[in-house]
């Protein structure tokens, strides 16, 4: 018996540990970008984000010495600082071949009796028996440990002073402009249709439900060119009106399907009683069915909002590419193309764009889960 109990607790430990490992595996990529978005560009390329809290030992860019020389006790001296305070020199050198030739405090003999010493704090002293006015100044390569540095500057940069045509603040507003009507309109249209498909008797109802189920999986890729032609033909071309209509069309099958499934589960008695009492379908719908369907409406609203906020393809096709119509995802793709190595810009921009969906996700997760279950489990 005790043996079984021992095996059991071993299994429990295994479950906890593997669950933890799985969660870690899923969180780490996002965490990496989040940490990176608070580091300076130099720090990001200097060491992995997992070393962000440690001091960073890296070779600093070469510094050409310079400054006014002072005559002191018969020697000419130039003093100065290699870098601003904060870092600690661990090694230095005077040529790119041997950048770590000297320890801090050591004295290097350069040609012509010139000596150079670099202290731990980056202060250097260059001294010479004769004037150095005509001398070509030496370069110093220093390897220094810089303390960790966290900053909000990246966010400030991407929000306040972006590149031309890359304004993320504007893109944020544009995305919101796309997402809100594209979330609300399909709900309105779908709710009425879902009620009819759930609670009204008419010939062809089953066929229509099958039609909606079929359209659920039609790839929207097929719709791009015909709809663009249609929009040009009716004169709205590329723009917000077009994308609102497109998102409405693409979101409708899921909306109708989810809402119908939910409405059909409402208690039959309530609706029959209302009918007997002389309520019209319109009254039943607005007074009884709609309020009771709130959870399903919320589920779909979250889906549609996340989907329209995160969408790239529909925005690329139905919106213009100008700054006043570029959405966050489009902006981010452009950044990846043009500034793929500037991780401080990329990571901050990415986080600005995923912030709203994450907030929606964590605050309304309950509805999202319920919607998913209603939408696919049979």
């Amino acid at each position: 018996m005790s043996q079984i109990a021992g095996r059991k607790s071993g299994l429990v430990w295994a479950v906890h540990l593997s669950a933890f490992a799985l969660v870690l595996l899923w969180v780490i990529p996002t965490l990496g970008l989040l940490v990176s978005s608070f580091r300076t560009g130099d720090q990001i390329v200097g060491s992995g984000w997992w070393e962000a809290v440690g001091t960073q030992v890296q070779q600093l860019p070469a510094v050409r010495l310079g400054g006014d020389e002072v005559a002191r006790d018969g020697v000419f001296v130039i003093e100065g600082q290699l870098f601003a305070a904060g870092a600690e020199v661990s090694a230095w050198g005077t040529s790119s071949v041997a950048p770590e030739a000297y320890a801090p405090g050591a004295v290097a003999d350069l040609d012509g009796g010139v000596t150079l010493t670099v202290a731990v704090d980056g202060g250097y002293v260059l001294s010479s028996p004769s004037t150095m006015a005509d001398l070509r100044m030496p370069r110093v390569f220093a390897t220094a440990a810089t303390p960790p540095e966290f900053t909000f500057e990246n966010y400030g940069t991407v929000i306040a002073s972006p590149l031309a045509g890359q304004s993320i603040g504007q893109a944020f507003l544009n995305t919101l402009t796309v997402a809100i009507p594209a979330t609300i309109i399909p709900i309105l249209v779908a709710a009425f249709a879902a009620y009819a498909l759930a609670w009204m008797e008419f010939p062809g109802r089953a066929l229509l439900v099958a039609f909606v189920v079929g359209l659920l999986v039609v790839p929207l890729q097929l719709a791009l060119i015909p709809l663009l032609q249609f929009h040009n033909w009716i004169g709205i071309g590329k723009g917000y009106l077009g994308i609102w209509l497109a998102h409405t069309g693409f979101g409708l099958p899921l909306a109708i399907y989810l809402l119908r499934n939910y409405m059909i589960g409402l208690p039959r008695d309530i609706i029959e009683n209302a009918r007997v009492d002389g309520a019209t379908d319109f009254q039943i719908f607005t007074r009884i069915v709609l309020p009771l369907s709130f959870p399903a409406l919320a589920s779909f609203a979250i889906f549609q909002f996340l989907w329209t906020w995160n969408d790239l393809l529909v925005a690329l096709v139905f919106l213009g590419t100008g700054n006043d119509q570029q959405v966050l995802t489009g902006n981010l793709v452009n950044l990846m193309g043009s500034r793929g190595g500037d991780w401080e810009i990329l990571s901050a921009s990415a986080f600005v764009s995923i912030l709203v969906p994450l907030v929606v996700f964590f605050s309304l997760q309950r509805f999202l889960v319920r919607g998913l279950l209603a939408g696919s489990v049979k």
Partner: protein
Amino acid sequence: MHPALQALVVVAVAVGGCIAYFLLSNLILDKVLFPARGANAGRNTNRANLIRPWLFLFPALAFLGLYLAYPVVATAWMSLQRDNSFVGFENYRLMFAEPKFGESFFNNILWLVVVPAASTAFGLLAAQLTDRIAWGNIAKSLIFMPMAISFVGASVIWKLVYEARPAGTDQIGLLNALYVWVTGADPVQWLQLPLWNNLFLMVVLIWIQSGFAMVILAAALRGIPEETVEAAVLDGAGPFQIFFRIKVPQIAGTIVVVWTTITITVLKVFDIVLAMTNGQWETQVLANYMYDKFFRAVDWGMGSAAAMIIMALVTPILVWNVWNARREMR
């Protein structure tokens, strides 16, 4: 007018318009066309009730017809045309002859095999592991979280994981850091490694979709009757036997639903490839190939043909879904 302001106006107009449409159309039907009074009161009520469902359905059907059904037909028709004249299957012939299409098709098949299987497997694993532990809900939340992140955002996140710095310098990409640390070899440009790079792109989608699979499968696991598991325990079944022999067969239906849902998503994958490699280094997929044809080569005939290939791949699932829905309604 500023677009944001315009959006608010549109919302107001749409809400008002919708309500006005339903209110007015019902009113006209009841009061003007078929008033429920006078000599024909009974007949009129019946007639009004015959028409009313279509009033409710009309806006939705108009949208569905115009924005989804019509484009399928139009795209099919366009795929048979070249320079505004009917050419039969010429576009398909041209497309099949292109090596880039073969590459896209092959890659798409690879995606279809790997992503749904891996996502479902990870989802099932996560669902089972988090089922009975105290912090299971937090774990679920965190694994589910990528669902909220856009494909483009996820691409940025994973691009940092795959980042390669020159050999000898500190690696800032997690994968290369581990690789260099373990093997001591030079860092690798993962996204430029043919065949394997497909896998690295797939990881992004697996990372996103596993949470979806987990949520649905977790609910299905909860729905398994306790007696079946208890009976198995009494019969001396081990934990793995219980999982594979008792639980999995009981949620097989749900597993199929999850699998097909992810398959549909995979067929439409576009953003990830566009953002991470743009189809270079042999990573092209059908949806991105189609986008290239439509909007870069401006070849609508071949673009439509490529879209029809995606449609053809979706069709079996469409038929299966419709068949299931019909069966349930009976």
